[in-house]
């Protein structure tokens, strides 16, 4: 049952709910009730006391004792806390029992008692009293319970007839303090001054003494008149259908206007400031304001079980009264506050017990309800739920929810505060009032966000299987009403701010990554807030990498891979990075960096396939760097791979000059001097030089031009000597030949044939005219003849004398030249004769220009030939001019020869003479 009361001061309503706290099963009727600490004592019409207790670990009260104290109905309990006693009035007999267990005492029973009340010392001093007021038919007694003797001592007795009800009060009067008693006899209310033993009559409470009207004397604190201001409500039946409530203070002065009803409150009255609750005939509950004196509610009690007594066969009259505060678990509030995991509901997080309490109880025959003021959190919660489904801009109710929630949020702590903040925040977010939501969005307690970031991301459409978080049930069950507009920008800003507060939440991190849309943000995030998460390569990082792939944030992806490779280097990552880099090579401006990135990570790759693939690609992009890498790593386990790469280059890209040359370069760089390596290089060069890319018509023509040019340059008609060797000529023409690649390979091949002695008669290649010079190395042919045929006269002369070709300027493989086997059995004179004959043959037509012959006889004539031999060889028409130098040399030689002979003869003579003299001397010495 809910009771709504309009507030006097504003348009708000105060709501009470009737919570069942006790439900006894016996047939007797509840007659009275009282509370002491965690105990409730219920008196019944059959003289039983039911003792209920609330244990800490259970939500409600449990019956723990059922004590038959008397045969008569129990009329009243009076707790005497100062001595831990309870006085139970049954009929007209009052008995003392010990609290809390209701064990009997040795104190004698009090008899002929109509009513009992604790004596109040002072209105300003709430000190508990051990003195009692006993109201009897003839007097009012003041007694004191003496604990040690367990007896009651009469302190004072004042004659007062027919007292049926009374309460003690005090008043500080003009000069002294006095104990006063508000008492009702069978007709009147009076004030008794206990100190001065006098009666101050007030007024009648019933006009007809025959009516069964019971007086009501209700003490209450008038909170509108300052602290500790006690007032008393006295009910009056003023006539046929009217009753009144008068309000007086302890002096008997009327303090406020009268309340009027059409019936008398036969079910009793209870005050919960500022409202008076009264139960009237036909179970009407009337609620009046003590401030405005207006009747706020006039309702029939509904929802509470109607009972009929078998004994009287009449509808049972509910009663209402006030007790000391009773607390019960606020199950409604706890239900909405109890957090549990959003998805895994079995993981429930228990909150502490939250009670609600009240002091006004409604009693029926067998049940007791507690009127609990509606918890304001529950009220706000209901308003919040309403606001979620209504237009917040036009509905004043929704605005009032917000105002109220905001006004109280700081008054609470713990789960309730958190719950309020959830409601406020979600209300704002629902209306996209981000600015207003900010304060609550980032609110932390003990460095922990009050509103779980998981909830925020969930609301904005980020949901994952593992997204689970604790959430108050009251919030959870309303989430379906919250349909947020997608706002990635807001969520990203939010996560940026709260990320440091979140402990390693995969879902949040994933969301963050999903929202990042620029490479700069990625780099900033990885270097900053997300740094610690990139220490390992786990499933979560895999997920994030997939996100980056989906977003095509390749630069970010490269950065992430590089970052991971620094911290957790692995082959897999290296492969991924290399794959990505190569995939993006067309989009990456700085290829040097790309190549460096790949090469830096190649050492991590053990797969030969991957390794060769990446290296191969690097070579295609930047062969210098690639080769440099291969060179510097050629002793690694991948040496064979490097070779394979070259072979592959050769096979796959044989028609690509660059790669063919690259292959050559690589082989050159890896030459070890062994025959294998040289042979391999030789084969490769040979293969390339006749390949379609090199052995082109253009190259051939240009080469032929070079040959012709060489013939001119080296013409014997030219007097200049020495003549340039063919390889050197080719070498100096590199860059201007128009067939540089061909020449380069030609020279290398020549040199390799020379070094490796690889000239093969079966090699068809060498049969081509263009390679005819190579026959100089043909063991079956005379090199001198070949050289002369190719106008390489200086080389022919050198070979004639030395038995080997001269060193070329174009020596690519100089380091291996020493290994060349030198010819040893040569006939220089014959060789030179061959040359001379050739020269002479070439000059038969023009002897005047026979500079070759002149050169020859000048250089070799006198050294290797006799003048007669020379003269015999020379034709008769050789101009003398060409012989001058030779003849001078011959003459000089002859002179030298003659002088030598003379000198030798002189020396021989001198030697003979010296020998003779020595002989003579020795002969003389022997004959003294």
């Amino acid at each position, binding site marked *: 049952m809910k009771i709504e009361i309009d507030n006097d001061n504003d348009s708000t309503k105060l709501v009470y709910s009737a919570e069942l706290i006790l439900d006894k099963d016996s047939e007797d009727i509840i007659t009275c009730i009282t509370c002491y600490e965690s105990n409730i004592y219920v008196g019944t019409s059959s003289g039983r006391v039911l003792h209920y207790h609330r244990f800490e670990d259970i939500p409600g009260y449990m019956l723990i004792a059922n004590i038959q104290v008397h045969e008569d109905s129990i009329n009243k309990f009076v707790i005497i806390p100062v001595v831990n006693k309870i006085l139970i009035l049954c009929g007209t007999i009052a008995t003392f029992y010990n609290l809390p267990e209701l064990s009997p005492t040795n104190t*004698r*029973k009090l008899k002929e008692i109509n009513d009992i009340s604790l004596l109040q010392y002072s209105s300003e001093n709430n000190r508990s009293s051990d003195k009692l007021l006993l109201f009897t038919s003839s007097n009012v*007694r003041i007694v004191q319970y003496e604990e040690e003797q367990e007896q009651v001592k009469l302190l004072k007795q004042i004659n007062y007839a027919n007292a049926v009800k009374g309460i003690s009060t005090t008043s500080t009067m003009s000069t002294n303090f006095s104990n006063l008693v508000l008492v009702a006899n069978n007709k009147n209310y009076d004030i008794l001054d206990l100190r001065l033993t*006098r009666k101050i009559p007030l007024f009648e409470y019933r*006009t007809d003494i025959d009516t069964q009207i019971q007086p009501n004397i209700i003490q209450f604190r008038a909170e509108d008149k300052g602290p500790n201001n006690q007032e008393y409500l006295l009910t*009056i039946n003023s006539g046929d259908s009217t009753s009144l409530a008068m309000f007086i203070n302890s002096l008997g*002065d*009327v303090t406020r206007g009268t309340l009027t009803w059409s019936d008398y409150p036969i079910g009793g009255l209870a005050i919960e400031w500022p409202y008076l609750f009264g139960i009237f005939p036909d179970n009407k509950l009337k609620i009046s304001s003590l401030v405005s004196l207006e009747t706020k509610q006039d309702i029939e009690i509904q929802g509470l079980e109607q009972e009929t007594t078998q004994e009287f066969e009449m509808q049972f009259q509910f009663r209402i009264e006030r007790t000391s505060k009773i607390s019960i678990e606020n199950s409604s509030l706890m239900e909405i506050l109890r957090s549990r995991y959003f998805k895994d509901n079995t993981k429930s997080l228990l909150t502490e017990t939250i009670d609600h309490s009240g002091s006004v109880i409604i009693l029926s025959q067998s049940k007791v309800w507690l009127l609990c003021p509606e918890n304001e959190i529950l009220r706000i919660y209901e308003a919040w739920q309403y606001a979620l489904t209504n237009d917040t801009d036009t509905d004043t109710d929704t605005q009032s929810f917000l105002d109220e929630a905001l006004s109280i949020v700081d008054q609470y702590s713990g789960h309730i505060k958190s719950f309020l903040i959830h409601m406020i925040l979600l209300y704002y977010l629902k209306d996209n009032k981000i600015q207003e939501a900010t304060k609550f969005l980032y609110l932390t307690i003990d460095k922990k966000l009050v509103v779980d970031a998981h909830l925020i991301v969930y609301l904005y459409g980020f949901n994952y299987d593992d997204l689970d978080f604790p959430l108050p049930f009251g919030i959870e069950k309303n989430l379906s009403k919250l349909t947020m507009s997608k706002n990635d920008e807001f969520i990203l800003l939010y996560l940026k701010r709260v990320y440091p507060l979140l402990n390693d939440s995969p879902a949040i991190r994933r969301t963050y990554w999903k929202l990042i849309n620029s490479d700069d943000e990625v780099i900033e995030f990885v270097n900053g807030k997300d740094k610690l998460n990139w220490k390992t390569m786990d499933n979560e990082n895999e997920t994030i990498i997939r996100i980056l792939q989906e977003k095509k944030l390749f630069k970010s992806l490269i950065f992430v891979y590089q970052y991971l490779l620094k911290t957790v280097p692995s082959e897999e990552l290296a492969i991924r990075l290399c794959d990505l880099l190569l995939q993006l090579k067309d989009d990456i401006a700085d290829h040097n960096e790309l190549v460096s990135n790949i090469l830096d990570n190649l050492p991590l790759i053990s797969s030969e396939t991957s390794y060769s693939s990446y290296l191969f690609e690097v070579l295609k992009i930047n062969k210098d760097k690639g080769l440099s890498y291969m060179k510097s790593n050629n002793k690694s386990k991948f040496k064979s791979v490097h070779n394979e790469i070259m072979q592959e280059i050769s096979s796959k890209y044989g028609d690509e000059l660059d790669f063919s040359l690259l292959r050559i370069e690589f082989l050159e760089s890896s030459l070890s001097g062994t025959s294998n390596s040289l042979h391999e290089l030789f084969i490769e060069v040979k293969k390339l030089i006749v390949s379609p890319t090199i052995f082109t018509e253009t190259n051939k023509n240009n080469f032929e031009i070079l040959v012709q040019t060489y013939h001119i340059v080296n013409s014997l008609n030219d007097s200049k000597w020495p003549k340039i060797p063919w390889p050197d000529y080719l070498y100096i023409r590199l860059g201007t030949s128009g067939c540089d690649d061909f020449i380069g390979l030609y020279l290398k091949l020549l040199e390799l044939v020379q070094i490796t002695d690889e000239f093969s008669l079966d090699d068809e290649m060498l049969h081509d005219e263009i390679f005819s010079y190579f026959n100089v190395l043909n063991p079956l042919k005379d090199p001198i003849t070949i050289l002369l045929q190719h106008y390489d006269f200086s080389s022919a002369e050198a070979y004639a004398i030395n038995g080997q070709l001269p060193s070329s300027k174009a020596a690519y493989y100089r380091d291996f030249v020493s290994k060349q086997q030198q010819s040893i059995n040569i006939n220089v004179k014959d060789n030179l004769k061959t040359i001379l004959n050739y020269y002479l043959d070439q000059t038969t037509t023009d002897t005047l220009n026979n500079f070759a012959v002149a050169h020859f006889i000048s250089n070799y004539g006198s050294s290797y030939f006799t003048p007669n031999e020379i003269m015999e060889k020379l034709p008769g028409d050789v101009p003398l001019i060409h012989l001058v130098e030779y003849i001078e040399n011959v003459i000089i030689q002859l002179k030298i020869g003659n002088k030598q002979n003379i000198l030798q003869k002189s020396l021989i003579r001198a030697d003979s003479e010296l020998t003779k003299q020595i002989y003579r001397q020795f002969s003389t010495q022997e004959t003294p």
Partner: protein
Amino acid sequence: MSGRKKTLLKVIILGDSGVGKTSLMQQFVNNKFSHQYKATIGADFLTKEITIDNNKQVSLQIWDTAGQERFQSLGVAFYRGADCCVLCYDVTNEKSLNNLTSWKDEFLVQSNVTNPQDFPFIIIGNKIDVDDSKKIPSLQKKLQNITNNQLGGLNYPVFETSAKEGINVEAAFEVIAKMALQQEELNDANGHDVSDDYNDAINIHLESEYSGCAC
């Protein structure tokens, strides 16, 4: 009653049912008038702060009591501590005029004022806004007769007002306030209520005291 603040002046409005006591109070305090008659049950009061004599601020607690006879037994509670009593009649209702004397007597009996001869009363004839034809014939004479003969010949101030039109209401209550203040000051000067808050107490015969349990 020295227990109350000195500036709080308690004024009781008495008179027959329907003379306009509630309307006078509402007009004075809230400047409101309701055409709908609703009999007062029990009593109610309104408070208004006003300034009188040389900027003296007082709080007038004006008690509107039920005119019906059946509630008169409650009077003792309401009248206690009054500083001024307003006797109200209806200028169209001669009976209400004639009953002024009994209202005065009732008040003096139940309130137990210490100086009944000097206690300030004021007479208000309400509803002067109605047609003259409806007014009590020879009202002034009858009023004078009552004040001279039945009210002891005392010269109580008389105001004719209209709660409906707001005529003379302010003026009447200003005089009421002044009179109540004088009464309050007079009580203070005479030392009333110094030793006792109850001047209507009845002494009770005290039984001999017991030293033990007498139950």
